[in-house]
């Protein structure tokens, strides 16, 4: 049976859906874009601008729709959803890429154990009241013990047992604990966790010990996990130095020793102690001053000793 005639008449009924061009149109389905790289035909352009533009656009749209309708689709309420491939044409971002956050202590544990995150709603079904109540917030169920007007007191409780205060303190303690853990998580993410601080202290100490040896730690026994130090050598001054250099070096050393800069290592000076002596003296002498204090203590001691001495006899 010859069906070519029927096919031809069928095809003639509908207009063509294919687009033929010199250079095939570049369709980027992922970014819903079609680019026509053929040079613009001057004659059609000059003859009728709008029609030419519209025909170009129609061809481009046809090619784009052809590729879109061949994509796999998912049904949805508004119609078929086509699954787009990732775009080929790269556009610059508006904001820089987010830095990946290190996982928190709980997240590490949960991923290791395979615990899924369960999102709970704000409202919870209360069987007793037969209605939806807030878990937290206004009239929240977490404040029930504090709000209720009657509470069972345990058998051997104190006389002044305040159930409301106890419940409130427990709730506040839970909040404070959560805050503390959140702060620790933030510090750990920023690199300031206690382990990192301890590591940094240890590395600093090791660096100091390395410099303390004559060979700059080159021949010391290496510990596990210690970082390799490169390029630190002991510096030797030249054996023959001009006299001015020696004089300058010695004077500089002396001035450094006497200066108050942070770089000189000495025992803590008296003024660096915890007590502010000036203020203490002012307080003890009630504003009169150190000499008055001294007079008082000397006189008192003398009188006290004398008095006591006489008293004893």
């Amino acid at each position, binding site marked *: 049976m010859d069906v070519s005639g029927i096919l031809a008449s*069928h*095809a003639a*009924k*509908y*207009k*063509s*859906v294919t687009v033929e061009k010199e*250079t095939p149109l570049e369709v980027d389905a*992922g*970014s*819903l*874009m*079609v*680019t*026509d*790289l*053929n*040079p*613009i*035909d*001057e004659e059609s*352009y000059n003859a009728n*601008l*709008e029609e030419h*533009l*519209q025909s*170009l*656009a*129609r061809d*481009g*749209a*046809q090619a*784009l*729709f*052809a590729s*879109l*309708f*061949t994509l796999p*689709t*998912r049904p*949805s309420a*508004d*119609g*078929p*959803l*086509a*699954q*787009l491939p*990732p*775009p080929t*044409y*790269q*556009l*610059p*971002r*508006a*904001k*820089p*890429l*987010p830095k990946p956050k290190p996982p928190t202590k709980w997240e590490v544990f949960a991923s290791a154990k395979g615990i899924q995150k369960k999102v709970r709603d704000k409202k919870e079904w209360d069987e007793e009241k037969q209605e939806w109540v807030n878990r937290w917030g206004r009239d929240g169920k977490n404040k029930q013990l504090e709000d209720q007007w009657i509470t069972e007191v345990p058998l051997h409780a104190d006389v002044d047992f305040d159930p409301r205060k106890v419940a409130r303190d427990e709730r506040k303690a839970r909040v404070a604990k959560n805050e503390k853990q959140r702060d620790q998580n933030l510090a750990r993410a920023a690199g300031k966790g206690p382990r990192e601080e301890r590591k940094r202290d240890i590395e600093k100490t090791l660096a100091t010990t390395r410099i303390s040896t004559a060979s700059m730690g080159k021949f010391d026994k290496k510990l596990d996990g210690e970082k390799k130090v490169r390029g630190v050598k002991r510096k030797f001054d030249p054996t023959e130095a001009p006299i001015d250099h020696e004089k300058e070096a010695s004077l500089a050393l002396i001035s450094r020793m006497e200066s108050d800069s942070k770089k000189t290592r000495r025992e803590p000076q008296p003024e660096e102690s915890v007590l502010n002596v000036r203020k203490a003296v002012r307080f003890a002498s009630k504003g009169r001053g150190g000499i008055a204090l001294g007079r008082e203590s000397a006189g008192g001691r003398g009188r006290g000793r004398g008095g006591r001495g006489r008293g004893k006899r």
Partner: protein
Amino acid sequence: MLRTVKPKNARSKRALDARLPKEIEDTRTAIFVKGTHSGEVVNNVMKELMALKRPHAIAFNKKNAIYPFDAASGSTDSLEFWSNKNDASMFVVGQTTKKRPHGLTFVRMFDGKVLDMMEVGVESWKGMAEFKTPKSTPGHKPLMHFASELFDTHPRFIQLKSILMSFFNGEEVDSICLPGLEHIISVTCAPTPTSLNSATPNMYPNQTPSAPEELPKVHVRTYTCKLLASGTRIPRVELTPMGPSLDLVMRRHQPADLELVKQAMKRPKLKKTDVEKGLGKRKKNLEVDEMGDLRGRVHVGKQDLGKLQTRKMKGLKSGFDVEDQEVGSGEEEEEEEREDGGPKKRRKAE
């Protein structure tokens, strides 16, 4: 310049977190600013563009003394401040001067700084009100069509294509509702003049590449798409003009700084699930088997089997052959095989 806002309640914290950078970005919000003199043409064209860009568009009501191409004026600072305050990353600045009538400047931002700028002049325009045809629903994603080989070859037009794509179709989606594709924005250049075609860009590096009069005009048209039955699964597309049609002429431009562009084009690292699905560069030694596991092949070079170090089997030493002689020919054959093949085969037989 702005003080960092510290959130005082959960709602403001949510609003601030929504502005943080994300791996897959949202649509760029565009701010439409009028310069000191804008004129009726520029005002109307900006209104039309805003209608196409809604709801991700903000229009400033007052006039602002902003000259984006003037580095000495504080315009860059103004742009950065507005971008930060409104969380917007695109600008359309409209200004009319005697020298540059009906000018629109498209500015694109990255990381709060100006990435690149493109100034066009509106030669003629037709608004949506003049086309008495049905319009598309605001908020739907437009299809984009670029026609001219210049969009691939000439740097000015490559930049124009990139800016217009960022403006209209910037966000990445992984699925789209097919009945929702209602309109297409078509950007076409005039025929390329022969001067642009013949001149090779590297011939005279000191000369400015093309005088402004030589760049062809750009025609922007918007059409609504109608899908007709065609007998096959793919429908036949028919277009009806809708919406603004603009004829633009290229004016000044500021290309993007290479360092910033490198930062802006960084992509997030492909997750393991995507690599298993087959995205990313196909590595020759990686494949995903039927179980869905990622398997790799380690290619070791040709090994000299003669020098291979194997277990030493005392029983296989030549001295022991004397005891096995009475067994038969079968055994001998086996031994022969062992001798011919490498020591590896000897091991397999064991």
